[in-house]
């Protein structure tokens, strides 16, 4: 009975988030327009081989979309005064966190699917290993949605501050994760930075799924993404609990 109440809480929370937060301006701006502009800025007008850079772009789109919903929700609810009511429903902080992750992951999944469809229709992209690709998308959206929820944990009530802060954190990641310079060409400091970025492993997994070449064994990518997810969730849970009272 307890498990079913928990699961129901997660799903109802995700449903609420989808209804309320998907069309909020910060989500649209930082989640959709931002990666689109990045795409135009870096790829348009240059003669580049799309099949080499597409995995990186796909990873970037997934990363930005999946992590754009999470940072908004809790600060928004704290500011709007709805957080306390939410906590009085039969949920725990973890229920709320997982509901937020689920909403973020679904957002990432939807947008990534759109990008994939466009790619299939208009670009010549090879799909070497579709199952691996699917797995990468699922792991990636959950991982970066968790990352997004973690970004919401500082005890700030103002959604705009959190969105600024989270962009500040998210933006540099795309430069150190082998999106613009392939992983195999990185060395020294660049390589070390790439190792600590969770996005690296998604880019690499997309490479494996789309082109059949990857810098690490796929098992390492999978393990790394799962590990990052767990770490993000654990820290998010700890901080959301600690900062709960500051938002009431």
């Amino acid at each position, binding site marked *: 009975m307890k498990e079913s109440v*928990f699961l129901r*809480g997660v799903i109802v929370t995700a449903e609420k988030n989808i209804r309320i937060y998907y069309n909020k301006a910060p989500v649209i701006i930082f989640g959709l327009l931002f990666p689109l502009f990045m795409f135009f800025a870096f790829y348009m007008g240059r003669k580049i081989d799309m099949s080499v850079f597409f995995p990186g772009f796909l990873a970037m789109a997934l990363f930005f979309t999946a992590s754009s919903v999470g940072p908004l929700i809790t600060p928004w609810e704290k500011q709007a*005064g709805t957080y306390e*009511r939410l*906590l009085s429903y039969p*949920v725990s902080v973890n229920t709320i966190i997982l509901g937020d992750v689920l909403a973020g992951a679904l957002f990432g999944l939807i947008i990534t699917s759109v990008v994939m469809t466009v790619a299939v229709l208009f670009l010549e992209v090879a799909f070497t290993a579709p199952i691996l690709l699917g797995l990468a998308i699922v792991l990636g959206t959950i991982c970066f949605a968790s990352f997004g929820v973690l970004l919401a944990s500082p005890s700030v009530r103002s959604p705009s501050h959190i969105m600024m802060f989270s962009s500040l954190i998210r933006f540099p990641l795309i430069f150190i994760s082998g999106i613009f310079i392939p992983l195999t060409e990185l060395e020294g400091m660049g390589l070390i930075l790439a190792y600590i970025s969770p996005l690296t492993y998604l880019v690499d997994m997309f490479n494996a799924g789309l082109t059949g070449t990857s810098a690490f064994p796929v098992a390492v990518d999978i393990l790394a993404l799962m590990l990052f997810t767990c770490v993000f969730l654990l820290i998010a849970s700890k901080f959301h609990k600690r900062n709960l009272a500051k938002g*009431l």
Partner: protein
Amino acid sequence: MPAIKVEGLRKKFGNVVAVDNISFDVEKGEMFGFLGPNGAGKTTTIRLLTGVLIPDAGNVTIEGVDVRKDMIRAKMMMGVIPEMGDVYVDLTAKQNLVLAGKYYGLPKSALEEKSEELLSTFGLYDRRKDPVRTFSKGMKQRISIACAIIHEPQVLFLDEPTEGLDVQSRRLIIDTIIEMNEKGSTIFLTTHNIEEANRLCERVCIINKGRIVAIDRPEILRGTFDNTQSVEISFDQSVEGDLFDAEFISKVDRFGDKLRLYTNDPDRSVKHVVALANERGLRIVSMTVCGPSLEEAFVRLTGGEQ
């Protein structure tokens, strides 16, 4: 088994002890008032009882269920109207109710039926498809209370539910509380409105600076200070309060067009007032002798007399 059992509850924020080792029981079906000045710790207590905050020490059980150990199960049995607990302004009135119902696991048919029924009860059926953003404060509070009772909870917590509302919304909410109570729900109500507590509650607990200073039936609390009676008068024109200075009048309060003279000797006070009125040619519009008020007990107990 009491509906709410609280033992040694304590909560600190930094250096502030918001709730300081309080214990009490609320019986099943009781209407229990939690009274205190601003900052006394009422909201913090409600948050601790409803599992929103975790206490530093102490235990709370709701209908025998330990809130800390079995939080979800305890929460299923309660309805909560938080002090600032706003509903979602982006959702419509009905969507808010349906969301609450889903959290409490109502089946789909009951969800539809209950939410429409509540919307009618609260006079918002015609507005059910409008986003709550467009509602007045009183309408929002009606949605808030509807969200808290959609699952017919055994214990209902309300944190200053009528504060700052229009008369109509206030009446609706009070009537709902009374109706829930008559149907068997236990009511835990915080307020700093003494009259409201006096009229509604079977027992009140007065809290000050995080500590319980008294807990009893309103009439008994009132009687605790039987040396404070008062005479309430109003004249056909305004008069200065210090006109009535006398050794047997301890204090004069003015409210509206009335004066209240606190005294331990109503007989002499009345004669004194009548004589003065004659002397000055004042017409007495009304005069009432009041027994000790709960307000007086409250002010004394919470040391609010600066």
